[in-house]
């Protein structure tokens, strides 16, 4: 699902899988509202046995060790020895992960998550080397060991779980549509035949292509590229997760977010399956960020334009 060249059937299948996960969590956790009809494809193909549902993350082993005292031989000790955490992020998603052009620094809710993890390892949130990744390059960067972890609006899917171990979810989001304020479109169905832009290799691309309403889906390397196309009048709408669209709308008052949620998904930190200790460690960091309110404070700081501010997702573990 991370590549465009994945065939349509797999796409359908993964939408079905994501929805399966969504409904599972709705009945289990009960914290996610279930408004909006699911974008069920008209004729879902038979499920392939390899990928039917997402699995949960690894349970943290108690509290995180104090900064600077990572257990010998652990992945965290390797990172500590290197002196910096290498994190795959984005720099174009306003409020989520973006470069502030005035300070030149990266900021946003995703960046806060990275800094929390760095602070837990080093006691210093600035010991981070940021590597900016295109949406389509995130899985590969983890596979090649180019980064320790990816915090870049990374949606948990069972397809990706074959190559990536995800942390517990730190944010629940839903896919919606951004249109110019003058547009009459209020739902995705009003955009039949129109050019709708999203990022290449994203789950939102799969959802859009699966919609049986004849959209002309355009996929570009990043969502900001879609925004430029929208401003230049070359596409009619941009579809992505609500937090990302909120960042676009905040940069251009002549746009608005419309329509029901098309899909519901969970952002998590992506890591290598070969580093389960790091996954448990990150889950412990997230656990603490949920309980001491720092995650909610960060979301409130960056994403208050969204109403309501997205809630931290409940953590579920497979042990």
């Amino acid at each position, binding site marked *: 699902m991370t590549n465009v060249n994945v065939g349509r059937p797999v796409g359908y299948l993964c939408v079905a899988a994501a929805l399966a996960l969504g409904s599972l969590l709705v009945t289990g956790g009960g914290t996610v509202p279930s408004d909006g009809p699911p974008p069920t494809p008209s004729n879902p193909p038979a499920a392939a046995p390899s990928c039917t549902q997402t699995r949960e993350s690894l349970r943290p082993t108690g509290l995180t060790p104090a900064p600077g005292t990572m257990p010998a031989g652990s992945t965290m000790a390797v990172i500590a020895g290197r*002196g910096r955490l290498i994190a795959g992020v984005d*720099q174009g998603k306003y409020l989520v992960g*973006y470069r502030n052009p005035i300070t030149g620094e990266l900021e946003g809710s995703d960046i806060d998550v990275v800094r929390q993890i760095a602070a837990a390892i080093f006691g210093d949130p600035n010991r981070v080397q*940021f590597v900016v990744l295109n949406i389509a390059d995130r899985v590969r960067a983890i596979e090649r060991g180019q980064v320790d972890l990816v915090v870049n609006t990374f949606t948990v899917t069972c397809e990706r779980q074959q190559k990536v171990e995800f942390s517990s979810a730190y944010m629940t989001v839903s896919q919606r549509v951004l249109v110019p304020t003058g547009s009459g479109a209020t739902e995705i169905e009003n955009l039949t035949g129109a050019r709708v832009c999203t990022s290449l290799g994203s789950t939102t691309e799969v959802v859009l292509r699966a919609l049986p309403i004849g959209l002309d889906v355009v996929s570009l390397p990043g969502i900001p590229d879609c925004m430029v196309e929208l401003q230049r009048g070359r596409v009619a709408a941009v579809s992505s997760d609500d937090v990302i669209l909120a960042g676009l709308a905040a*940069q251009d008052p002549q746009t608005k977010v419309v329509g029901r949620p098309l899909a519901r998904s969970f952002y998590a930190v992506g890591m290598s399956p070969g580093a389960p200790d790091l996954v448990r460690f990150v889950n412990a960091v997230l656990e603490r960020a949920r309980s001491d309110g720092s995650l909610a404070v960060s979301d409130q700081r960056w994403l208050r334009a969204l109403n309501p501010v997205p809630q931290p997702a409940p953590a579920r573990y497979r042990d």
Partner: protein
Amino acid sequence: MTTGVAADTVGRPRRLLRAASTTPQRLRRVAASLVVGCLVIVVVSVLDGVARTDAVHASGTRIAVLTADAAELYRSLADADATVTSGYVSGGLEPAPVRARYDEDIARAADRAMHAAGRLPVGDPAAVPVAMIGIQLPVYTGLVETARAHNRLGLPLGQSYLDRASRLMRSTILPAAEELRQMQTAALAAAYRRGGTIPFAVLLIGAAVLAGVVDHAVLERRRTNRVVNIGLLVVGAALVAALLWWVVAVVVAGNRLDGARQHSDAATALDGARIAVLQARSNESLVLIARSGGGSSEQGFTTQVERVLGPGGDGGLLADAVRSVPDSAVRIGAIRTALVDWRDAHRRVRELDDGGQYRLAVASVTGADPAGSGVAFERLDAALASAIDIERVAFTVDVGRADSALTGLTPGPAVLGLLAAGAVTAGIGRRVGEYR
């Protein structure tokens, strides 16, 4: 064809001489054929002289100016893009000098493009790339201004506009400028060829007519046993003078043109070097902006620097420049050292960035660090600029000398040819008169 005409001219006097019934008639026919020969020399000389003077003059003025325009246009465009890109890397609002440099680059690029457009002859294929630049440059500046407006508001969308602008520059505008530059370089080379070739037509026809005159004089002396006719002496002297004029002018001009060509070859190589290092400079900033680590984008830097330095560090475009103008070895050596310094500074930038020291890497590139890559690049660029200036000035001097060597080549030998024609009529006419 030329030799055919010459053979005819040689053969005709004898045939006519034998065929004619009376001596005066024969002499008149000899005179007529020699006059025609002289007039042919006049015509061929004027035609060749005009073509040659035009070619050298054009190479010294129009084409050389267009070549300089094209190089300057390319450099200004590449520098504008590198400036706006490195201004963005440093973060914050652009410092006034950076903004001023960009404005100057755009103004100079627009000025050079207009200047070049005005000098191109109607129907010149080089008008196509010039028009492309004229169409796309406003689009580019529009995208850059949109990026600036967003940056000023602290919005990251500016980077997407900047990225788009830079892609437009690198994929469309710079290739058009490069096409113009190559067209003008080729036109300049063609002009040298036209200006410096041996004037076969003039020399062969001239030699043939001269041979005819000498032949006639020898036969007459044998037939009449009288001293050589004054008129024929004047004819011979005028023809020899015309031919010498041609030989000397062409040899001297050819020498000067060779010198000019060497300087323009060196300037072309150095222009190429300056463009290559500007592209490498842009690449350095773009890699930092993309923040995606080195990898494939770093390859762009290495390739450009290798074009200038050569694979072993002692070849490339700089070696081409020295081969063309051996006197420039010291200057070029200094450029080579400056480039190696910059490459070393760039390697430290990459080490800093790859080692997680992003801020130090940025400080090095933007010139905040006096031992950094930005400062080293400025030194290199200044050295290249002054070396290019020296070659262009030397080129202009040599083409000017070639031009003055050809002064009078169009009217001079032609007047001598007319004089010879007149002397033929007068000289042989006097003999004919003796038969009355």
